[in-house]
């Protein structure tokens, strides 16, 4: 199956503890997923932290990772978007 690059966006509830524990929990989930990790951006948005994660892998594994992320208690919402092929190839070749 094709490896493709995806953007996974999710928010972490940060009002209680600043969100670092939730972020660490999410990273533990990503570490164990059968995907290739590219990069991650975290933006402070007051009560939440907004995370953008770029990973490559099979669609099935990416979806599974998204479901696992949704299980993290601090995680509020998870969205998966496929990257346009050109961008995705650029990342894979970097």
């Amino acid at each position, binding site marked *: 199956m094709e490896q493709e690059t995806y953007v996974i966006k999710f928010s972490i509830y940060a009002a209680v*503890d600043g969100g670092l*524990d939730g972020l660490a929990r999410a990273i533990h989930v990503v570490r164990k997923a059968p995907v290739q990790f590219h990069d991650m951006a975290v933006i402070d948005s007051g009560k939440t932290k907004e995370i953008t994660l770029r990973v490559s892998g099979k669609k*099935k594994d990416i979806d599974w990772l998204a*479901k696992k992320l949704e*299980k993290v208690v601090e995680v509020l919402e998870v969205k998966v978007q496929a990257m346009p092929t050109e961008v995705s190839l650029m990342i894979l070749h970097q």
Partner: protein
Amino acid sequence: MHVADVLLESMEREGLLTVFGIPGSANLGLYEKIPDHKVNVILMRHEQGAAHAADAFGRVKRNVPGVAFATSGPGATNLVTGLANAYMDSAPMIAITGQVPMAVMGRDAFQETDVVGVTMPITKHSFLVRDPEHITWAIRAAKVISITNRPGPVLVDIPRDFWKVDVDFYWPSDEELLREWIPGYDPNPPKPSPDLIMKAAKIVVQAENPVILAGGGVWWSGATPEVLKLAEVLMAPIVTTLMGKNAIPADHPLYLGHAGMHGRPEANYALYNADVVIAIGTRFSDRTVGNFEEFKKGKKIIHIDIDKSEVGKNIEPDVGIVGDAREAVKMLREYIVDALNFKRDMEIPLIKKAKEFGEQAWEVLLRERGRGMKPWKVLKIVREEMPRDSIVTTGVGGHQMWAALHYPVYKPGTYLTSGGLGTMGYGFPAAIGAKAAAPDKPVLDIDGDGSFLMTSQNLATVKQYNLNVGVLIFDNGSLQLIRQWQDLFFGHRRVGENLAYLPDFVKLANSFGIEGVRPESYDEMRKAIRRVAQGEALVIDYIVDPDIMVLPMIAPGKVIAPENIILTPEQAAGIVV
């Protein structure tokens, strides 16, 4: 009110009245206040035991997690195996650990460990309480998270400088808790999709040989009656995973036993030869089906699970239904009976074939072999003597597989074994936790000599609190299951399996003030088990021949096909794992 009182008051309000633990400097401020509250603390002799006891307490109670207290540093790290065990078997428990003071956190203070960091991947959730005002919130959240949806362990870490801080007691409402503290968590199980249930129902009614595979989730959701009703409508057999053994009464006429690596041959035969498998509350462990791709061939899979990340994880189902097992199975049956007008009167043909296959296999398996009392005969005595609702726990190893094969469970919720993590040492503290949860029921730990040694120091706890449990030790002087793997798959090279210099288990028990016996005949064994059935604390040292291999077995990585079932050691020759 002092934070310590706030914590204990919160525990009382949440019904968390039984705690297993060991004090230390980081939680002495908490212990100081215990006499003022209804919370009852049982002193274990190692924190691993405290975690296993709390896990077992939660398994028995289901809606009330067991609680473990530990101090910071080594106390907290000693909980790690127990937390991982509870996590793998989805058992609800709460660990409350003391932490070094906020002011020195992160500076390698005496007995500092970042236990929240250490346990992140092996807990359902954890909190480091950073504000003394947060205690009530954290305890409320820990309870709800541990018992709802797919249950699991939650850890709450509290800096020790908080214990004497004065705060106002504030009890958040359910709504506030969910909105302000854990908005990402939905305690309600997802609703099963009616469309998917209908799709599954249509597949099921067209199946000639459907088989139900019940996992541990059936117990957690209280789905046993629904699963039985579904089986009766379909006249289809039920097989279970190792964890599912705890969920289905073994004397139900449609029950064929547990499947898997050491599964009953009739159960593996049926599961492998099914044309449709209705898997309920199971994560399709490799120990259950052996090889995912080969297992899937030629069959349709309907997978019902409360955890959406389990559906499609190991096996891609034809229909994956996310929801609470009880609700989903009820809907499935109603669609089958009411919408599709389907009900079978006669057992599906696969049952007869599976039973015939099983009979032939058992004829070989139960041939006299080895010296001394045979495990299957001893376990038959255990079942005959222990009341139907007694609780049995196990260690991990050959004895655990013997128990799975030959100890039928009649009452759901009465069989506690470490399935996912396979933790030696689980059985004995789990028996203590189970006894605390169900003081009126006889409790027996079926253990290995190696497993028992890992947590046997808790014999003192049994005596101290009159938590009378029995221990049946399969004393074979060996890590028998390891020896068996070495004999079968690793060139007969026995390395590191010989348990030389074992203690005399009778004397060991006596030294803790507990009686011990070493039966020499089946008759003496029966008398000993009867004493446990009557509620005595008793260690039974059952001398068993280490060369009696626990069979049947399927080599790791091989699918549970009938031709892969090893009935005699000779059949394993040449298998490479």
